[in-house]
């Protein structure tokens, strides 16, 4: 029974990470109807940028606590530079196309970005342990537990609440919601959908990069870390319902807790457990937990 607490904590920490990597994906899909496979490479870009920026910061002898700001900066830069570059430079010419064709396009972008990352940062692993070790440990049930994970949980909460507030309580957010509901109608009402798309994609990119940047201190950053992320993020987003932020949160929590329990009691089935949850949810609710209602077709 004493293992319940660490399992729960692990579960919530993992859920926080899952939410951070899924929020951007579901947001972009909800507004733009694009399942952004390049989400994985934006995540990786965030991780690599974090290594470079925080590495330079720490290498310059600056106070270690500031490295956290560097992580945030990495996410912001990716969001403000790469996001708009992709959206304005490529995606905006493709909006009329079929959803699956759009997936193929983002898939092609993913392939390209994977190699660009390799060309810029090389193929060796990068490590950034300082931010992870800095806050130290605390103990749960006698076992040491990194404070960094608490930071991750806090970050996920803040991000989720900030997004929810921005969507439901600000005018800009309401415009986004309008476009999510009906793009054509929004255009007819004079909403500048082009700008909404640009903003959404950039925010989504920043969120992906945020996930990557804050994961960098906890893992070895290598080419290909973005791959597993796409599949996991998709699983979480599908469980929650494509386009639903609350769904992503709930899906992340569900998957996080189930995975944590699996790792503790049945380690071989770890990877299996995530997709088993997805399969079970889809059998019960084919479009996910909070799927949008579909209007009558005929």
């Amino acid at each position, binding site marked *: 029974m004493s293992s319940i607490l660490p399992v729960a904590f692990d579960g919530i920490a993992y859920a926080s990470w899952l939410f951070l990597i899924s929020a951007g994906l579901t947001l972009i899909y909800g507004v733009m109807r694009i399942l952004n496979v390049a989400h994985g490479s934006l995540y990786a870009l965030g991780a690599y940028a974090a290594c470079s920026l925080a590495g330079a910061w720490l290498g310059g002898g600056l106070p270690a606590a500031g490295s956290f700001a560097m992580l945030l900066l990495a996410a912001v830069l990716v969001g403000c530079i790469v996001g708009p570059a992709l959206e304005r430079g490529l995606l905006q010419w493709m909006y009329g196309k079929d959803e699956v*064709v759009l*997936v193929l*396009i983002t*898939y092609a*972008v993913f392939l*390209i970005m994977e190699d660009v990352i390799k*060309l810029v940062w090389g193929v060796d692993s990068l490590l950034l342990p300082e931010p992870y070790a800095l806050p130290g440990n605390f103990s749960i049930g006698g076992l040491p537990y990194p404070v960094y994970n608490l930071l991750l949980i806090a970050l996920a909460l803040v991000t989720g609440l900030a997004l929810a507030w921005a969507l439901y309580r600000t005018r800009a957010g309401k415009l986004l919601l309008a476009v999510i509901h009906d793009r054509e109608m929004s255009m007819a009402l004079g909403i500048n959908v082009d700008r909404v798309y640009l903003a959404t994609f950039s925010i989504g990119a920043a969120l992906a990069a945020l996930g990557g940047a804050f994961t960098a201190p906890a893992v070895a950053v290598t080419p290909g870390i973005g791959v*597993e992320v796409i*599949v996991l993020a998709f699983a979480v987003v599908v469980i929650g319902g494509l386009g639903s932020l609350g769904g992503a949160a709930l899906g992340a929590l569900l998957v996080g807790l189930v995975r944590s329990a699996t790792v503790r009691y049945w380690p071989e089935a770890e*990877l299996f457990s995530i997709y088993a949850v997805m399969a079970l949810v889809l059998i019960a609710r084919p479009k996910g937990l909070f799927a949008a209602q579909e209007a009558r077709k005929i």
Partner: protein
Amino acid sequence: MRIAAAAVAAVAALSGLALTAPQWLVFMAMLALAKGVVVLGLLVLMRTGLVSFGQGLYFGIGAYAAALLSHHWHIADAAAMLAAGTLAAALVAALLGLLLAGYRDIFFAMLSLAFSMILYGVLVKSAALGSTDGFNLHARTFLGLALTSGMERRVFLIAGAVSVAAVALAVHKLLAGDWGRLAAGVRDNELRVSYLGASPYRVVYVNYLVAAALAGLGGALAALAVGHVDPETTYWTTSGEFVFIAILGGTQSILAPFLAASIFEALRTVASQYAPNVWQMSLGVAMLAIIMFLPAGLWTLAERRRRPA
């Protein structure tokens, strides 16, 4: 009739190549054939309006089934391996298809990807199956006839060419007739298909099964060519390659997958020699270029009813 003549000519050409060409070319031809037949399965799915990002699942199942036959059950017959690969893939698809046939569009695409990654995870964690290293397979006979050393791949290529040609002609017949029209109907307007009295679910299920069996055959063939299986066969990049070849070749003819796969294999061989770090980027750029300027390959996708925004 033209297709049948073309297939016979292709088999003859490949057999000639098998008997006379150097080993490396025989090897490359086997891989092109193997990947081509997987992409043929993608073509069948695309006729129904679906893209699978996870054919690597069945490609891997086909490869491992063939390898396990010799490794665990000591049946070192190439013909048996080809059959085992096809059958194993079909069996798994019979089960998974029950779930997947209810999905469309990106759900279908990403779910198929997810399942292939599940198998990847299972294989990587399985010490009994060699984990990331995989294990070797060795076929010593074909239909009971002993193979002389050095001749194996030549025989496999001929056997592969014959079986793939037979299968391709069967697929052509399937798509050219009523079933192909029904599949196109499901792609264009599945609502109308049900109101006319047919079941889109059933159509997708059958096509999914066919595509899986084809991928299993391809996997077994590839395993025979390489002499080795590892989890890379089920990794998303492998599935991605199949999608790329499908786009490259277009969906107009059953010969297209094989032509595209040959071009692809040739390019890949060159790229891995001279520019391994930009291979994925080149694929990505080529894919974008094809989508933007030569959408004939995506013709069937483009014809689908546009979803409201």
